[in-house]
């Protein structure tokens, strides 16, 4: 759904991402989101708010 919002809103917006979390303190790597350039970052520590340009949606 947020990906659809991003298409409508265009660049410059930010998203609060709430992936399913295991620990909430960066330990389990469970709540990752895909980022541009490849790989994943943790929504609990690196996020939960990301600039639209960061996320690989």
């Amino acid at each position, binding site marked *: 759904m947020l990906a659809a919002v991003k298409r409508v809103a265009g660049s410059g917006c930010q998203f609060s991402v709430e992936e*399913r*979390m295991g*620990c909430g303190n*960066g330990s389990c790597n469970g709540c990752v989101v895909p980022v541009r350039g490849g790989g*994943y970052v943790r929504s609990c520590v690196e996020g939960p708010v990301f600039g639209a340009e960061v996320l690989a949606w």
Partner: protein
Amino acid sequence: VRERMAGVDLSVNLCGLALETPLMPASGTLAKEALGEVEGVYGAMLPKTTTPRARAGNPPPRVAETPAGMVNSIGLQNPGVEGFLQDLDAFDLGVPLFVSVAGDTVAEFAALCERLAGDDRIAAVELNLSCPNVECGGLIFCATSASVEEVVGACRAALPNRPIFAKLTNEGVVENARAAEAAEADALTVINTLPALTIDAHRQKVLVRGGLSGPAIKPVALRAVYEVAGAVEVPVIGSGGVVSGLDVAEFMLAGATAVQVGTASFVRDPREILDEFSAYLQEAGLGAGDLTGALRGDHPVVTGGEGR
């Protein structure tokens, strides 16, 4: 913490290493961001598994909650051994530092051990033998005792002067423990997560296909520790569903010399687990080291035919 535990001896000796407490994190469950919460709790430090090259890990969803546990499928996300070693000082809490490694092949395991042999910060190496062996059609290293013996032997040759722990899965654990001991592993970590699956019935999709952890697996892990400790001479590190201080005591009574805390640390403060364990020892008038294997002989170890 230590003040509250005056008079209780929490220390244990694991492969010649003096640990202030028998607790350590289970690999993959403690990041550097959370270290402030565990200072003085763990007798050793054990970061996430590292691999020869960086791994992005598996696509989400990676975790799912289940009754009394969770299923995870992280895919060993890590920056690769060189990046891992650059960041390793963050895990220096003044206690012995253990490093968990995994490779796709026996040669990769051995190369990792050789790389770590040159790093004096590392007190011991844990081999994560629940990862797939690409030379055996993707079967995990623990799938056969021959492959356990081969990989442990290769790591032993590459790392002759530091303790090596073989982390084993539940299936075939006694045979694999004997194989690891024959290949001169110094200790055995028992057990890893159990193969598990969660399904989203509403979307009719597989949610997470991975490993089950948490208190749901504790009785399975306890039995594995009990039987392995009866079958080998080397120390056992118990792991699987430890949530309370009494759980720690149970694992040590079953034969563990040290105990790992994993999933529980996502739910409660590991400090409380140590405090409970300390209170148990105080009441029993025992030191942590007195517990290991104290049940031995009470019940003969049976390796088949029971359970009906």
